[in-house]
């Protein structure tokens, strides 16, 4: 079942609040501290005697380390220690595992493999002195040829980047394949229309406003390590530290305090964290490491970097038959992709999109290059951004060839509601969907026909206006533990709920907000299930000593996995409350009826007890039903049976100045469906943020390199992020198609807009350039690249 609602009216939104006990628009519990500047971010933490760590990085992309002289740095009066890779190697700590079971150098020992790789670190009494001392370290390098062009990484004469790996004779990481190659080939051979295009998703970076960092504090006597860290996944980090460094897990406490945005950038474990832990261990004092902005952009988890050869087969009438692709994936110098182990290409397999196909096939080759490691970040839902961008771009190329309207072509091919659950030709089971109403709603909100008329008139006058459409299906909520794990850790999530005697509650999560509003939405989930007002529910997260195990917040998994856990643990507590209520009201359990917040005797609503009454009885002096323990609390671990599949229809309207090639995004209409909504205000916020990301990626951003491997995007002057001037006032709407397997029908929403918006923007720009005969142009569509395209000189960005 799908319900549809128009976009909220901002004027109404700012009206006086009703405070729902459960789902609905509710102001955030985290805001009162954040608007007073009383948040507690990692760099806000000051401990007695705390030292500061700074990292020396390689100026070269590929070079052998001949010698390192740290004597001058060590002589600096405020320097406490200078550590090199050789020092770490003595302790067996020079290398660490990545989240993809590869290895990554903590500090380079033999050679550096990307520009800005970690080479040594300084610990000093203050942050300025630590930086000063970096200048005093003298490293001699022997330059090696770098591998920068991904297309040449597998050339027979390419330099071998990972000669640290035994027997490694090339730069190949993995081959991956999905779908049925022969069946797809058969469909393509007989198809009336085949369209091919090389589609590039350049390397980009999530660039959260707060960079990555940590404070490590090892207590000398007990050996207890406390690590305050910018981590989206504190439990996973703790276990990895235990496995890597051999520290006993119960002696490690990872605390992720307030986090200033993550977007996937704060999932991996970075060398800086390990350096800080080692420093605190060796020196016996707390040590802080905070990246500067350049370090963040040039060394931590990048995203995308896929070269995708896409093909689509269809009938002349526009029935899409099959899609296939060959992908070349640039993973940088270490394979640091944070994806479930069995999914080296993430969830790229959903490249079949939202369409009912006869066949599909994709194969991928991933390679090492002399660039920073990473690969899954920037709200991509494990490579779904790449998959959706590819299919939505090639569908537009097909519309171009067929001279069909791109919205009409999509409407003709969307999976029908009666086909759900729908199994794609690559084996993904879409849980629920009702696509056409979302598409129609977006078109209505946009005034689609009117926009096309306006465009036709403008084209007559030589003006450039474009209308871009995208329809996406996301796959979020990783994931079923039989299929999905990271470094052997199943992707389930725990949740604990404790109701205090006075009916107030505390719920403890394994996931961790980076701005998504967990303190509010998880209180709402518990409130919805048990009727305690959200303001009476404390949400504890981001502290491994005080929360149950789980894999953290990324891939839009908090609501689908941990949100389900919160609902089910509350139902477990409510079941116990019902037994206690039956004793209090002296009726059988079956004779009780639940209305939010209280149990009443069926047929006699005057006889009832509230959850607060029950909580007091659970802890009180009175008798409880026989065999029942006191207390009112429960714990569960939720293992999702499937992913959830949110979807949406986006329309972008752009104008291009023919004289300067400057693109203005005039309007952006986004209709999203994330199933049952917990807090529409927060959902709208999640969508808005992702839409801005889409404009950034489509028009402004790229982590580019020169031929020597110098990173050309090392500051926010070179790597552009949309401001309030490049972004329009977003127009949002939603439909509601609940997930059939999620306890309350919710799906994830955190990354839908980042996934769905880049193709809408690019499709709009390419549509505007139709008078120039343009069918495809690669991101980032900066004014200079749009201008070149208009002159017939479009070049791929990599």
């Amino acid at each position: 079942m799908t319900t549809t609602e128009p976009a909220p009216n901002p004027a109404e939104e700012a009206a006086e609040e009703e405070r729902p006990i459960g789902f609905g628009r509710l102001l955030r519990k985290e805001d009162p501290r954040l608007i007073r500047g009383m948040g507690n971010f990692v760099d806000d933490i000051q401990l007695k005697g705390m030292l500061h760590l700074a990292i020396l990085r390689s100026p070269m992309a590929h070079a052998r380390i001949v010698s390192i002289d740290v004597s001058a740095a060590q002589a600096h009066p405020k320097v406490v220690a200078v550590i090199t890779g050789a020092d770490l190697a003595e302790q067996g700590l020079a290398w660490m595992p990545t989240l993809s079971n590869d290895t990554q150098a903590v500090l380079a020992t033999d050679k550096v493999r990307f520009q800005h790789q970690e080479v040594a670190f300084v610990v000093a009494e203050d942050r300025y002195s630590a930086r000063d001392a970096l200048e005093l370290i003298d490293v001699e390098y022997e330059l090696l040829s770098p591998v920068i062009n991904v297309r040449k990484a597998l050339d027979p004469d390419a330099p071998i980047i990972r000669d640290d790996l035994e027997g490694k004779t090339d730069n190949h990481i993995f081959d991956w394949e999905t779908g049925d190659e022969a069946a797809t080939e058969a469909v393509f051979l007989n198809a009336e229309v085949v369209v091919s295009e090389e589609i590039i998703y350049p390397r980009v970076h999530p660039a959260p406003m707060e960079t990555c960092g940590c404070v490590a504090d090892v207590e000398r006597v007990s050996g207890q390590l406390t690590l305050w860290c910018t981590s989206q996944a504190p439990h996973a980090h703790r276990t990895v530290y235990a496995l890597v460094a051999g520290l006993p897990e119960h002696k490690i406490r990872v605390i992720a305090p307030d986090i200033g945005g993550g977007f996937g950038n704060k999932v991996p474990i970075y060398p800086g964290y390990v350096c800080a832990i080692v420093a605190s261990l060796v020196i016996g004092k707390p040590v802080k490491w905070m990246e500067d902005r350049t370090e963040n952009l040039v060394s931590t988890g990048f995203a995308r970097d896929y070269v995708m050869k896409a093909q689509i087969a269809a009938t002349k009438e526009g029935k899409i038959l099959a899609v296939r692709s060959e992908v070349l994936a640039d993973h940088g110098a270490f394979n640091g992709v944070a994806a479930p182990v069995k999914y080296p290409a993430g969830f790229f397999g959903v490249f079949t999109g939202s369409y009912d196909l006869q066949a599909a096939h994709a194969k991928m080759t991933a390679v090492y290059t002399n660039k920073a490691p990473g690969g899954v970040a920037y709200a991509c839902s494990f490579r779904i951004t790449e998959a959706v961008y590819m299919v939505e771009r090639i569908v537009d190329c097909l519309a171009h060839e067929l001279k069909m309207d791109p919205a009409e072509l999509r409407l003709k091919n969307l999976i029908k509601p009666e086909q759900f659950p729908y199994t794609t030709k690559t084996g993904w089971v879409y849980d629920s969907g009702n696509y056409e109403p979302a598409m129609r709603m977006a078109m209505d909100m946009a005034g689609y026909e009117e926009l096309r008329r306006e465009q036709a008139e403008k084209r007559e006058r030589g003006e450039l206006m474009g209308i871009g459409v995208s329809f996406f299906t996301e796959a979020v909520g990783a994931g079923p533990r039989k299929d999905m794990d990271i470094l052997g850790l199943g992707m389930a999530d725990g949740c604990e709920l404790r109701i205090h005697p006075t009916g107030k509650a505390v719920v403890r999560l394994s996931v961790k907000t980076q701005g998504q509003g967990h303190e509010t939405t998880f209180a709402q989930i518990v409130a919805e299930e048990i009727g305690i007002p959200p303001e009476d529910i404390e949400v504890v997260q981001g502290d491994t000593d005080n929360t149950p195990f789980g894999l953290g917040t990324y891939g839009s998994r908090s609501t689908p996995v941990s949100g389900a856990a919160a609902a089910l643990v509350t139902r477990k507590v409510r079941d116990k409350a019902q037994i206690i209520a039956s004793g209090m009201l002296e009726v059988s359990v079956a004779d009780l009826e639940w209305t939010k917040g209280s149990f009443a005797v069926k047929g006699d609503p005057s006889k009832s007890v509230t959850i607060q009454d029950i909580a007091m009885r659970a802890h009180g002096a009175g008798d409880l039903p026989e065999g029942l323990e006191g207390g009112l609390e429960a714990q569960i671990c939720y293992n999702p049976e499937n992913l959830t599949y949110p979807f949406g229809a986006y329309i972008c309207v752009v104008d291009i100045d023919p004289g300067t090639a400057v693109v203005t995004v005039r309007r952006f209409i986004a209709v999203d469906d994330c199933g049952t909504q917990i807090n529409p205000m927060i959902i709208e916020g999640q969508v808005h943020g992702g839409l801005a990301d889409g404009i950034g990626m489509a028009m402004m951003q790229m982590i580019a390199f020169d031929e020597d491997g110098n990173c050309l995007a090392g500051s926010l002057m070179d790597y552009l992020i949309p401001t309030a001037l490049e972004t329009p006032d977003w127009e949002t709407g939603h439909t509601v198609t609940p997930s059939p397997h999620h306890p309350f029908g919710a799906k994830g929403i955190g990354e839908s807009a980042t996934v769905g918006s880049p193709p809408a923007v690019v499709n709009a720009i390419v549509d505007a350039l139709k008078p120039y005969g343009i069918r495809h142009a690669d991101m980032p569509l900066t004014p200079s690249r749009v201008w070149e395209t208009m002159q017939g000189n479009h070049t791929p960005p990599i």
Partner: protein
Amino acid sequence: MQVNMTVNGQEVSEEIEPRHLLVHFIRDQLGLTGTHWGCDTSNCGTCVVLIDGEPVKSCSTLAAMAGGHQITTVEGLEVDGELDPVQEGFMNCHGLQCGFCTPGMMLTARALLNKNPDPSEAVIREAISGQICRCTGYSTIVRSIHWAANKETKVSLGSAS
């Protein structure tokens, strides 16, 4: 060297190195950690504070340059337990998510409304265009500042009648 300034109405007098950035002085020396640091290059604006009422990026200002001036940080917006309407607006209109850019955004908004009590959407967007938010996509920030402007207009009309 010695530096004297007024921060949120309080006189401060501190010993600093001449090279100390204002953002580090405010955060590390005064312990006012509501002012954040984000980029080194004055592009992101998360470090914005008001110097004599004007929004300034404290990552690109030496602490010494602030000597003798009036500094307002986010901690100075709430007066005697009463929130600034800009703070209320950000809460009511979901103008923040992670909250990292928020202090700088709010201070710029405060400076804007002091000069222009009824700014248009275009004027608001221009005013905050030197600052970056990665979470909100800006629409709700614009709404938040409108909300504050509306509240202040109502209050001032009320006091005039």
